[in-house]
């Protein structure tokens, strides 16, 4: 395996070296070393430090405790290691003792004698031997011991086995093997399948399910006319091959990848490079990248073999999955921040790919699943050994910036920004130098103030320095976007291995101030066969590659099942396992376990092809059934658990919005390169655009997947129709029916202008009014109006134009206006009606 050489990390990230250090010294000490510690070090710590820095102190200061070896190495809230064996420069405890740093002088009242300080230097240089091991005997507190053998018996932890489809009584109904599984369930529960969907209903269903868009009137006509037995397959293939398929199915994955372009949480810093990951996902679905490969790339794309620079860059972009999660950038405790990032990564990987809530084992053994806290910290070590590069700049409320990954110039990656001239680059750099100078001067002036004056000025002085530095950082964020010649750099969020991997200590109760045993990096025990090696070999670097191969493996009992269930859920309206993100002990059990296994195994046999899986489900009669009500069936199975009919499904917010634009002919299929977020500016400017709603309030006309997704600032149209919380893994969206949706469709200017565009299109359509009405119906619903509907519409036309004409006068122009207004109101009614946003 080749190692990547990635030249440039923009900002020195906050390293988490403490944990590495904690691992470094496991070897025994010599008696001399022990004696040295007991004689020269321990008494000083007890005398001069423990008062404020031990677990027993009434108030632990700076988050630093010095009464165990692990905690001493780890350090305090600053994020700097307390002691790094053999490295004086990386030992903040030593630095504090020397009183060289004005802001950190310990002990505060009286500097220690020089010979004591010299002893500490000597001690650190000899490797900081320390017998005060913090032993954690049982991380679960001894209350519960997890029996792995028993745990492995959970249905989802056993490998799926392909079973023969069951025999069924009703002859001729089942078209595919899937149907046999479904029909057996239907029969066993005394139900009867309803009749098949009619052709217009079916193509509308297929079109929305594959592309997120309504079928065009021509597509409907061709399908209805096509009497060949191949018609359904043909139309499915047509949509599977369309550009729109990738965009639609990528969005499903982005829901579980908690995709967004800002940090969310308290400060909500923009992530201007997140869109690369979004585009990577679209491309992957479009090309039907094998799902196992897709997962491997997202966990360890930077470590995989690659074919040329473009392929390498794409794989690095894939690791953006690990970097785009929500983060509390204002956290002052950098170590806490790092552990929170790791926790978020474990949560996202485990829920999205394995359907497990492994992050529950952060503070204690998992309450329900056979997952230990040891498992959690074995995984944590893998992520701690990797560097998460999410960008952003240091600002008043952002204490936790990181670097980004610069993609090779020759890798043929899209740029979100236009080229600027070299002289503009020079100007930016000049601005940066000036801003830096200004910041340095502000600091100098404040520091030169007499202490009394400084105190008097209080926060004002602090803000003055901070403000000047923020301005400098903000200009720097612009400088960093370009090469000398003004070509924009192609930067990506993602993950790279650290130079030296490290293991994580178990944190007792998840508390970074209470490190316990160091756990070797490894995998989740219950998902490995008994006796199989769990640990990452020292030659494996961080271990992400091992993790990737382990998850994306045919031997992993969860991976294929979880994805097969996700695809089934999207196409059928409910999962075989109704809790798609939790296959653990308290997730719900599968309604059709054999079918789930059949789908999972077939999925793997077909080279993890998502398209083939989709096609297979769509070709089933179960998928092609009608969604009509049936009293007898309903009485037995109101939730349609056994699929006696197709579920009536609410379209997702994006599909409703895209369809609103599509029927008016105003949907733009060519979004700008990148994302508006990439152009909003980092630092303060970016924050301001978020809070002025500049990014989320605009009436964009391109497909919803390309609209900027700012956490907690989701555009109104999307949020009103249950867009998921972009900070959480959401495999199954809510679908609500609330008045705010009705108000939006009736009264919002964007809804009204969509109706206007639709009306213009109808008005231009050749033919008489009956033909125009048909056209409107074909566009909106893919069918002809019924007699009853025609009557309701004519009733509307008899009343509405008069009602709005009252105060408009009788001029020809006024009449024409009133007529158009009525046409628009009619078109809006179609958009507002239930059928527009439901699939039958």
């Amino acid at each position, binding site marked *: 395996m080749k190692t990547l050489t990635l030249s440039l990390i923009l900002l020195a990230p906050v390293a988490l070296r403490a944990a590495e250090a904690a691992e470094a010294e496991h070897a025994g000490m010599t008696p001399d070393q022990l004696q040295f510690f007991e004689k020269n070090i321990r008494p000083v710590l007890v005398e001069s430090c423990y008062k404020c820095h031990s677990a027993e102190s009434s*108030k632990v200061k700076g988050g630093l405790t010095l009464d165990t070896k692990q905690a001493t190495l780890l350090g305090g809230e600053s994020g700097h290691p307390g002691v790094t064996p053999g490295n004086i420069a990386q030992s903040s405890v030593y630095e504090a003792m020397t009183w060289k740093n004005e802001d950190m002088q310990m002990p505060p009242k009286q500097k220690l004698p020089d010979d004591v300080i010299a002893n500490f230097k000597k001690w650190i240089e000899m490797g900081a031997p320390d017998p005060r091991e913090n032993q954690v005997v049982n991380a679960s507190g001894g209350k519960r011991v997890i029996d792995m053998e028993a745990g492995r018996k959970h249905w989802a932890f056993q490998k799926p086995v392909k079973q023969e489809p069951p025999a069924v009584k009703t002859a001729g109904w089942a078209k595919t093997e899937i149907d046999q599984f479904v029909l057996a369930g239907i029969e066993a529960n005394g139900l009867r399948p309803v009749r098949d969907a009619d052709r217009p209903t079916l193509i509308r269903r297929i079109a929305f399910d594959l592309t997120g868009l309504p079928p065009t009137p021509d597509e409907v006509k061709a399908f209805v006319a096509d009497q060949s037995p191949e018609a359904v397959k043909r139309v499915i293939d047509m949509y599977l091959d369309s550009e729109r398929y990738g965009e639609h199915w990528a969005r499903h994955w982005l829901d579980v990848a908690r995709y967004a372009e800002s940090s969310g949480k*308290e400060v*909500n810093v923009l992530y201007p490079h997140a869109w690369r990951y979004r585009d990577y996902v679209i491309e992957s679905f479009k090309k039907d990248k094998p799902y196992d490969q897709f997962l491997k790339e997202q966990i360890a794309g930077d470590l995989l073999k690659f074919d040329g620079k473009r392929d390498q860059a794409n794989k690095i972009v894939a690791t953006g999955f690990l970097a785009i999660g929500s983060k509390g950038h*204002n956290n002052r405790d950098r170590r806490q921040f790092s552990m929170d990032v790791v926790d978020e990564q474990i949560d996202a990987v485990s829920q999205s790919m394995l359907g497990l*809530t492994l992050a529950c084992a952060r503070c204690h053994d998992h309450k*329900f699943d056979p997952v230990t806290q040891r498992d959690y910290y074995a995984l944590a070590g893998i992520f701690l050994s990797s560097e998460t590069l999410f960008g952003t700049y240091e600002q008043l409320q952002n204490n936790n910036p990181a670097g980004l990954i610069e993609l090779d110039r020759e890798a043929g990656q899209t740029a979100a920004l236009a080229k600027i001239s070299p002289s503009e680059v020079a100007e930016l750099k000049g601005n940066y130098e000036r801003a830096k100078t200004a910041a340095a001067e502000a600091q100098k002036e404040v520091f030169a103030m007499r202490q009394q004056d400084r*105190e*008097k000025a*209080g*926060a004002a002085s602090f803000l003055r320095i901070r403000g000047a530095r923020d301005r400098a950082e903000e200009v720097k964020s612009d400088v960093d976007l370009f090469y000398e010649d003004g070509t924009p750099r192609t930067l990506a969020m993602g993950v790279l291995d650290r130079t030296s991997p490290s293991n994580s200590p178990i944190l007792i109760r998840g508390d970074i101030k209470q490190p316990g045993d160091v756990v070797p990096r490894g995998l989740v025990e219950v998902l490995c066969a008994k006796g199989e090696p769990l640990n990452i070999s020292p030659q494996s670097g961080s271990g992400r590659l091992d993790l990737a191969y382990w998850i994306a493996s045919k031997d992993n009992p969860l991976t294929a099942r979880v994805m097969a269930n996700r695809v089934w859920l999207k196409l059928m309206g409910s999962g075989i396992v109704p*809790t798609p993100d939790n296959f653990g002990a*308290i*997730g719900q059990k599968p309604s059709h376990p054999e079918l789930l296994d059949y789908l999972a195994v077939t999925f793997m046999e077909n080279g993890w092809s998502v398209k083939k899986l989709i096609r297979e489900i769509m070709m089933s009669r179960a998928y092609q059934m009608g969604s*009509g*009500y*049936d*009293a007898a069936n*309903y009485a037995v199975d*109101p939730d349609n658990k056994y699929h006696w009919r197709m579920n*009536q499904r*609410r379209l997702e917010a994006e599909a409703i919005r895209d369809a609103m634009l599509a029927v008016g002919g105003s949907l733009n299929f060519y979004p700008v390169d990148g994302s508006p977020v990439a152009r909003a500016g980092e630092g303060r400017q970016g*924050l*301001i655009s*978020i*809070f002025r709603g500049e990014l989320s309030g605009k009436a964009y006309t391109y497909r919803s997947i390309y609209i900027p997704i700012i956490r*907690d*600032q989701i555009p*109104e149209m999307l949020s009103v129709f*249950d867009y998921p*919380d972009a*900070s959480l893994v959401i495999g199954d969206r809510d679908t*609500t029916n*609330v*008045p*705010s*949706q*009705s*108000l*939006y469709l*009736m009264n*919002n*200017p964007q809804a009204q202008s969509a109706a206007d565009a639709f009306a213009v299109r109808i008005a231009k359509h050749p033919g008489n009014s009956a033909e125009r009405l048909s056209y409107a119906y074909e566009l909106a619903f893919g069918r002809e109006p*019924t007699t*009853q*509907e025609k*009557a*309701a519409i004519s*009733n*509307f036309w008899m*009343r*509405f134009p008069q*009602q709005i004409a009252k105060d408009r006068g009788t001029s020809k122009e006024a009449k024409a206006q009133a007529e158009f207004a009525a046409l628009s*109101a*009619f078109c809006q*009614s179609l958009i*507002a*009606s*239930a*059928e527009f946003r*439901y699939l039958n």
Partner: protein
Amino acid sequence: MNTTPFSRREFLKTGSNGFGYLAFAALAQQQALSANPQTATGPLAPKAAHFAPRAKHVIFLCMQGAPSHVDTFDYKPKLIADNGKGAPSAAGRYGTAKLMASPWKFNRQGKSGLYISELFPNLGKHADEMCILNSMSTDLPAHPQAFSQLHTGTTQFVRPSLGSWALYGLGTMNENLPGFITINPPGNATRTYGSAFLPAIYQGTKIGGNGLPGGGVGRRGGGMDQQATVANIKNSRYTTEAQRTQLDLVQALNKSRMQQDGGVSAEVEGVIESYELAFRMQAEVPKVMDLSKETAATKALYGIDEQETDAFGRQCLMARKFVEAGVRFIELTNGNWDQHFNLKASLERNTGAIDKPIAGLLTDLKQRGLLKDTLIIWGGEFGRTPHSQGEDGRDHNNKGFSMWMAGGGVKGGMNYGMTDDYGYEAVQNKMHIHDWHATVLALMGLDHERLTFRYAGRDFRLTDVYGTVAKEIMA
């Protein structure tokens, strides 16, 4: 209580010349026949409490930024006596700081003789209605985290807010209005009224409020945008009559859809219902929000049209109107309580803006007989240090601070719990935010241990695994 021009009942009649009547007659029949009880009740329908509720409504007056307890509701004679002395070790990292007596006098108020700062001359008159909670604590002294915990119980995760839990537990009493309304919430704090994993119908409906980034540092607060209302509540194009005609068409199409689906569809039925509620809200919401019909005396009571108190006075009056209209949970936010410096002028400005409006609200609710059913809560995310920061400020203090409640079944004229001699830490009858949540729910008739929602395979509650109800404060 249907006074809207187009109530559902009237729509059934007016619709009879088109499709409406038949549609709804058939629909009503199907509803009656439907085997699924969900369709008959709906998620917002009133639900039985776990035990007899003391309060039917809550008005939460949320003071964002953390008001200083030692200058408002926590009287500390020793702090006055030791003014200027070094802070005790409890001050932690502020070891060298100096204690600062409140610049304001505390007076005994009402028959009960509660100590209340002179900053609240009007509210002080209601001392006998107030139960002052002096022993509050929260996990972290950081604004966003504590603000989140105040609303959702957690500093870290996205969880449903207090109002959403209340609505989920009890439903609402007016079909023409949302059951949880939040007025002027800070920007970037959707978590404070979000429903998280609870169905979206339980989330708060936001009125006004476009704060600045950072949750705790918004510099705007207080005032409410005159334009602010429920999103998309007004149709700019058509008269009500014309819109009703349009809606009749929409509903006829919905009805037709449902017939084609075999006559029963909970989904389409939901759409039909939500259009009718939305249509009714268009009439009801602006009416409730219209303060012009209130008498001059009422307005004066709330300090409306006085520069200092106008903004918050309007919000308080609106809260009363929402209570009258049957809304379950109303939250008002007032910002800028983060007095690290300039305490004297700034805190006085804050209290000046809310003292009269809140006193007016209590008076008004009482005279209308609504106070006994309405729980008023006042408080912020934490308190402030008894020692000074700079010469005229106080820093964050999360281990001891004060809130108060009134009305809705709490004992008046009472102090509950206390902090140490200076006000650093709660030392008696400690009330963590979890306990406070448990108590608020209990006052509404909900058992915080039974009010659960199954999400991702586990039963969640507002109080997680914590929470003790303070029974002593219940009347």
